[in-house]
């Protein structure tokens, strides 16, 4: 018997896939959503979970399109007769000089990360609001509140995700629907594999992480599972950093190892008036 039905977006890899596996292990029925270009890994993920005995439907579609969210919700209701949770996790990132980047990268980032987040949460919330119960978790990022070189579009989009989560939390609290956010730091996902597994590149980032390692996707999934559970019943609009201590402050940062993308020009203090 299905005790809980949850939609997970960005479910074909990384945090989304780990979340799907975790929730399936906890007995939830799942609607997995991933981008059309990830249709194959999405099917593999769905098949893998079905082999473990989970009830799974899968939908390969762009979360930035309004029809996708509506389809995910209606598929979930059709298959499982209920919708209890949403892990709105789909996100993309471009890396590169922010001044010269084509504006299409900004638009695409916001299309998926912000518009997709808004549409997905809204569609799920309509059902949950009527039911008077439901739990939603948005994947924000430490980039929601920290700046980072060559990540202007991504960081702006994640800042927007954090504020979406907070504001939608206020709008939905009166209806018994909880919205919270998880803010992962560096995670060892396929999308980050090129950086994490390259000692040269990783040395630039590891120095900021007191735990001196990236998270495993399962460690983010565990926090999402907590936020989707009744154990988080008094959280509302909370943004939970899961970052190995990165936003707590500075450890003994090895500044020599921090390579900047451009040479840092010294900004001299203004001359005192004579």
């Amino acid at each position, binding site marked *: 018997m299905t005790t809980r039905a949850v939609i997970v977006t960005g479910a074909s890899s990384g945090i989304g896939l780990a979340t799907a596996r975790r929730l399936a292990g906890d007995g939830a029925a799942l609607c997995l959503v991933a981008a059309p270009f990830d249709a194959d890994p999405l099917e593999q993920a769905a098949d893998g979970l079905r082999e473990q005995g989970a009830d799974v439907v899968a939908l390969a579609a762009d979360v930035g399109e309004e029809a996708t969210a509506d389809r995910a919700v209606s598929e979930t209701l059709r298959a499982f007769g209920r919708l209890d949770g949403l892990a709105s996790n789909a996100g993309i990132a471009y890396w590169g000089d922010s001044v010269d980047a084509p504006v299409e990268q900004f638009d695409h980032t916001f299309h998926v990360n912000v518009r997709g987040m808004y549409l997905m949460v809204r569609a799920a919330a309509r059902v949950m609001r009527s039911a008077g119960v439901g739990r939603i978790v948005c994947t924000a990022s430490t980039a929601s509140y920290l700046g980072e070189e060559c990540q202007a579009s991504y960081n702006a989009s994640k800042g927007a995700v954090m504020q979406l989560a907070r504001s939608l939390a206020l709008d939905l609290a009166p209806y018994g629907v909880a919205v919270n956010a998880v803010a992962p730091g560096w995670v060892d996902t396929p999308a980050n594999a090129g950086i994490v597994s390259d000692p040269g590149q990783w040395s630039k980032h590891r120095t900021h992480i007191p735990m001196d390692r990236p998270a495993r996707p399962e460690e983010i999934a565990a926090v999402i599972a907590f936020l989707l559970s009744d154990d988080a019943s008094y959280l509302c609009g*909370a943004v939970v950093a899961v970052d190995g201590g990165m936003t707590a402050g500075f450890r003994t940062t090895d500044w020599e190892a921090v390579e900047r993308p451009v040479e840092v020009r010294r900004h001299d203090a203004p001359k005192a008036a004579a």
Partner: protein
Amino acid sequence: MSGRVAGKVALVTGAGTGIGRAACVRLAQEGATVVASSRTLAHAQETAAEVERASGAAALAVALDVGDRETVDRVVDEVAGRHGRIDIVVANAGFTLAHAPSLMDTTDEEWERVFRVNVTGMFSTCRAALRHMPAGGAIVTIGSINSFVAWENDGAYTASKGAVLQFTRALALDVVARGIRVNTVCPGVIDTPLTREFLDRAEDPEALAAEYGAVAPMNRMGTPEEIANCILFLASDEASFVTGTSLIADGGTVIRP
């Protein structure tokens, strides 16, 4: 033994009532060996009895005034000696000035007493316990929404809870290489026996309780059990990549003006 903190030894301060007592119960229900400490031994003993009723496991009750720094080391050493180690600390002991003085009307003694318990007591407890804490250990401090926003006529408490937040971050960095995590739970207005005592002094306690609840967008006070669930999560291995973080459990109070 099964459970989310199975086999761990957990020391909880301020365990005589409210959030501390609920934390003892939840940790014990999830397999921890609990040491309930309170300034008043009888209160710790009541908690130990409650733990046994709720979990079937015995809990140790000890008298510990965290504001008395000479005794903190001795009592924590005794606890560690008895159980061999301390894996989890819930540094929960804290209080505010019930008569709610403005900062202008707060005396030196009042200010120092709030900081002695809420800040110095937390520091002494954590430092003492860390001498006995193996890798995989976890410390959970109790901040407040006052760690982020101020409250009128609660200045000493607000300043002390701001200190709790930054202490938590600083300690997280100092012990990360030992494989120990440090986080803080920041509750909003919680319906504890102490809150009730305060409400009961009002002309219309239920009206004031409703007013307290309305501070939160969720339109109710939180329960000690809800905070205990957050403490349990941060204390457990489920939170293995979470350190130096504040978990705000306030029904949404601080995210709106």
